[in-house]
């Protein structure tokens, strides 16, 4: 069997495109499904039920609730993924501090320097915030200008998050992934190493983290969008009361 490696290598160029298409499809599917379900329910129910809000309809509300719970678990799975990564990445803080401490002591007391140790600190520094980006978003750690946001209603906040993540965050990640792809690919092609001969020779792996950063943010961005949709479509108090009465 002959595999044309060069052809395979070139076909990798299409990966960012595939990535962006997948992300768009995921977002579109989530949004579309949400607006489609009520329509489907409308066609299946009796005319007098259509007139009433679909939230008030018990069956519809039930199937909505089933659908919502699926989405909710998808969102929490995505966030869980980032939380696990963030918790692991947080240990880099400690290792980084200790490593830098050791480097300082060795340099000032024993006049001994190690380029590899010094570079490993840069690696940890870079990994720390590139891997932590999604986790920070999940923990609401990215600052907002909350002059208006703080006073806004929950529904408005959900709209801002939905629009923001689909208009700002996801396109930014996709474009960044796309641009970073050629940088990373070239770096892998030559197995780029340190500028120092005795340094750590893993710059190509280090650069790959830029792609991972985009992916983690996309994951958390989708989770944020889903959570906002859930909030926006949450049955109102009134319809819940009606359900209880029936």
């Amino acid at each position: 069997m002959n595999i044309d490696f060069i052809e395979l290598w070139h076909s990798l160029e299409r990966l960012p495109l595939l990535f962006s298409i997948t992300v768009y499809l995921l977002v579109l599917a989530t949004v579309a499904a949400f607006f489609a379900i009520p329509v489907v329910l409308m066609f299946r129910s009796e005319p007098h039920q259509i007139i009433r809000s679909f939230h008030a309809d018990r069956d519809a509300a039930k199937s909505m609730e089933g659908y919502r719970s699926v989405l909710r678990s998808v969102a929490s799975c995505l966030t869980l993924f980032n939380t696990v990564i963030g918790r692991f990445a947080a240990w880099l803080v400690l290792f980084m501090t200790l490593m830098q401490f050791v480097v300082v002591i060795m340099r000032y007391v024993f006049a001994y320097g190690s380029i590899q140790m010094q570079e490993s600190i840069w690696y940890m520094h870079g990994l720390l915030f590139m891997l932590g980006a999604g986790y920070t978003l999940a923990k609401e750690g990215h600052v907002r200008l909350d002059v208006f946001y703080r006073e806004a209603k929950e529904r408005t906040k959900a709209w801002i998050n939905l629009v923001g993540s689909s208009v700002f965050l996801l396109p930014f990640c996709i474009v960044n992934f796309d641009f970073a792809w050629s940088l990373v690919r070239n770096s892998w092609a030559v197995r780029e190493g340190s500028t120092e001969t005795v340094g750590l020779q893993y710059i190509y792996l280090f650069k790959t983290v830029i792609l991972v950063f985009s992916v983690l943010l996309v994951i958390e961005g989708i989770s944020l969008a889903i959570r906002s949709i859930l909030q926006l479509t949450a049955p109102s108090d009134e319809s819940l009361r009606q359900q209880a009465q029936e």
Partner: protein
Amino acid sequence: MIEFITTPEFLCAALFVSVIILLLFGFPVAFSLAGASMLFAFIAAAFGLFDLAYISALPQRIFSIMRNEVLVAVPLFVFMGVTLEKSKIAEELLDNMGKLFGSIRGGLGYSVCIVGALLAASTGIVGATVVTMGLLSLPTMLRRGYNPSLACGSICASGTLGQVIPPSIVLVLLGDQLSTAFQQAQFSMGNFSPDALSVNDLFAGALIPGLVLVGMYIIYQIIIAITRPESCPAIPRDEVRTEDGKSMLRTMVSTLFAPLALIVAVLGSILAGLASPTESAAMGGTGALMMAGYRVAPRRGRLIVIGGICLAIMLLITVLFDLRMQRETLTTLEWAAVFVALVCAVGLVLGIFTAILRVYGTRDQKGESILPQIMQQTLIVSTMVFVILIGASMFSLVFRGLNGDEVVESVLHNLPGGTLTVLLLIMLVMFLLGFILDFLEIIFIVVPIVGPVLLQMEVAPGVPMSPVWLGVMMAVNLQTSFLTPPFGFSLFYLRGVAPSTIQTMQIYKGVIPFVLIQLSMLVVLWFFPALATWLPSAIYGP
């Protein structure tokens, strides 16, 4: 009309204004900045007004943030600050400082100023510091019968002051941005072997103005204590002296002296030129960890104390002997010194590990270990900072792609009145931006745009503008902006944590004298730039 819209001037203004408006909706700043400028670039590119090759440099920018040696100091300083906070050392420091000064009239106010100046430095987020100080000391001050206005004013002012006093991460980031701007300025003036601006210079430059500000805050409070004694009563002496003198002294030494020594050591080693900010941040972080380990279990902290002593001995030996091991011959004495140093190193390692174990073993009220919390908090704060930097890089790439730097340069050069007008204009813009943006965003957005132009100007004929001076001016200016009613950042944050008995007007009234102090500081800095530039040149040479 079309011609007007397609001018670079209009496009740059449109980019700036639309990004700011989109930021105001409240989606996280980093992503709004990145996403909005990117969309703007794509729209402009669709009309043939922008070359997308400019923003394809973004991953390279991200990579340079990832391996920037100066920026490594940020997570380390944050780690130090969060450790001091989570292990309640900061809280105790404030408490004991209050006890120390409490029996003097206005004493609580002084201790808030001093602690704020020392400890607020390591977070870099105005809100966080003011919230912490507000939660810790506002209730005490009110209970002791302080005038609410005075209490709120001093807390707001001291909470923001930490940003200006080294070692603060804001100064690290400002120094990093300014040094790039300074190099660009010198390149375009035809100097191809430019002087470097280091973070050390900025730390040294900000020290005296910062201390003067603390001094003026305290003097103002002393004046108030004399003219209106009822507004800041002293704590009765017998309430303070609950313990006997000796045990009181011991608490003072362990809780007051140790953190102060840590901060003075960190700052001192930077200012003395012994260590880079990154190196002293690592020392500070490890030191804070050891202190936290001792603080959470003082009775079992013998190994940690031994570790600290070992460190001191090692440093002493380093001063006295030549310990370089890669040499041909060592005298017997030197071998002995090397041996002692190695033994001390083992002791130090043991001490640090004990400290880590102790901190790991400590649980908060919810029963969770505090070490992961410290690390996660550090991760969140540093990520927040750097992702904003990434977003701002996108903004500045787009801005540059629209020929924004040339626009800014020509606009600023054509202003009547020379350097003073330009500087006043930029300071005013930054001041107004300070109402809606935090320190970080302003530094990352404004400094790359105006820095290179400003630093080419002359303050007086033949005297180029000093980057250190400019940095200090910017920092003090922004700090003033965060204090100014009705939009100042820190006022909002204090409002959020202050009890509802305090009226918003009281906060505004209390903070106005501090704003005046700040403004007079800016004027003084304009007329006496030496206040900022003397110390760096005295330490590191011109």
